[in-house]
C-alpha cells in the first residue's frame, strides 16, 4: 500500500483568460488516478470584479411554493418531531401553502412556552363522513401540568389572531400521550 508520502503531488496552474477571469487547473499524474478516464475538474472565477448591478441577478429564482414547505418539513426533522403519513401532510401543505407561516409561528410559540422536553407530532385528521380534514400538531410531554390546556389555548388565540384568513385547517392540541 502506498504511503501518504509516496503519493505524487498535484500540479496546479492559474491561467488568466481574456475576460480576466482566473482559471485554476489541477492535474494529477495519470498513475495516481484510479481510472484514466476520470474527468478533470476546474473551478473558475465567475465574478472577477464585484458589480452591484449583478447582485440581484446572481440570487436564486425565488417565489417558490415548495421551498418553504420542504423547509418546514426539514425543520420538523431537526426538532426530532414525528410526522405521521408525511405524504398526506405534504400534500395538504401544497394545497394550503399559507399554513407554513402559521406553523413556523406556532412552533416558535410552543418552544417559548414549553421546555425542550416536549415532542411534537404533525398529523392529518380526516373525518370520512363529513370529509372534514385538518392538520394537527400534537404536543407530547413526559409529565403534563394541569395548566397545559390553558397554555395551548393561549397559543391558539395568538395564531388565530395573527392568521385570521387561512383557508386550510389547523389545530394545536395534545392527546396526553407520552413522547416516542
Amino acid at each position, binding site marked *: 500500500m502506498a504511503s501518504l508520502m509516496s503519493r505524487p503531488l498535484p500540479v496546479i496552474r492559474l491561467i488568466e483568460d481574456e475576460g480576466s477571469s482566473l482559471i485554476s487547473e489541477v492535474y494529477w499524474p495519470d498513475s495516481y488516478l484510479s481510472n484514466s478516464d476520470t474527468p478533470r475538474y476546474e473551478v473558475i472565477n465567475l465574478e472577477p470584479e464585484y458589480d452591484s448591478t449583478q447582485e440581484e441577478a446572481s440570487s436564486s429564482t425565488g417565489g417558490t411554493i415548495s421551498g418553504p414547505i420542504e423547509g418546514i418539513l*426539514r425543520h420538523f426533522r431537526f426538532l426530532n418531531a414525528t410526522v405521521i403519513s408525511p405524504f398526506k401532510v405534504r400534500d395538504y401543505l401544497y394545497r394550503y401553502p399559507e399554513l407554513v407561516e402559521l406553523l413556523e409561528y406556532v412552533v416558535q410559540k410552543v418552544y417559548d412556552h414549553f421546555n425542550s422536553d416536549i415532542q411534537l407530532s404533525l398529523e392529518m385528521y380526516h373525518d370520512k363522513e363529513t370529509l372534514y380534514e385538518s392538520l394537527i400538531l400534537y404536543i407530547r410531554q413526559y409529565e403534563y401540568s394541569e395548566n397545559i390546556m390553558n397554555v395551548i389555548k393561549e397559543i391558539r388565540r395568538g395564531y388565530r389572531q395573527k392568521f385570521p384568513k387561512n383557508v386550510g385547517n389547523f389545530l394545536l392540541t395534545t392527546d396526553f400521550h407520552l413522547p416516542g
Partner: protein
Amino acid sequence: MAKYNNSPIIESICEFRFTEDTNWDITVPGLIFEDVKTEYPHKEQRTTQEISISPLTAESNKMKSQIKKSDIAVFYKEDKRSLIQIGPRILSTSRLKPYNTWASFKSQIAYAFEKLSGRVEPKGCQRIGLRYINRINIPMEQNKVILENYFEFRPYCGPKLPQSHGDFIVGCIFPYYDGRDLCKVELRDAAPENKDSLSFLLSIDYFLAKPRSIPIDKSVEWVENAHTEIETLFEGCILPPLREIFEEAKE
C-alpha cells in the same frame, strides 16, 4: 423532463425581473388581475423578505446587509397548481406537481409575459430564471441509500473520510455562453415521504446572469433555450436506476 410517467418535478418556476427603468406602480398587479382573472380567478397577497448582502470591496471593509420587504400578488388557477406572482418589477409563473408538459408550461409563461407586456413596457431584463425542483424518493436497502448508484451529481467523500453520512447539501454553478447565463444545481436531503425511503431535492436553476444581455422581445426564446439546457443537466445528474424509478414513458 416530462418523458417520465412518475415525474419527480414538484415545482417549475419562471421568473422575470425587469430593470429599474421599467415604469411600475402599485396599480400594476390589479390591472393584470383584470386581464387574467378568467384563467386565474383566485387571488392572494403575500409579503416576502429578501436579504441582500454586499461583499467586501476595496473601498469598504464592511459587509452591508439589507432586508427588503415586498408585497406580492398571487393569482391561482382553479386547481391551485398553476399560479402567477407579481411583485415590484417581477413577474413569475409556476406550476406545482403534477407537471404536465414543457409545451403547456411554456404557454403559461408566454401568456403571463404577454399579459404583463400589455400593461407595462418592460425596458430590459435584469434577470430571468427558469428553475425546476425535483423531489426524488428512493427506497432504502438495509436502511440506507447508496447515492452513487443513482446520481452522477452527488457529494464525494475521499477514502479517508467516513463513507456514511446524514443530512447533506451539494451545489455547483455552471456557466453558459461565456457567463451570460449561469445554472445553479443543488442536491440535498429532504424530509422522507415514508419510513422505507429517503428523499432528495434536486434543484436546477438556470438564469440570465448579465442584466440586459438579451433583448426584451427575445425573453421567451431565452426561456426555451434555458429549458433545453436544464433538461440536459437533469439527465446528466441521474443514473439509469433513477430513470427506472421515474418510469420512462414509451414513445
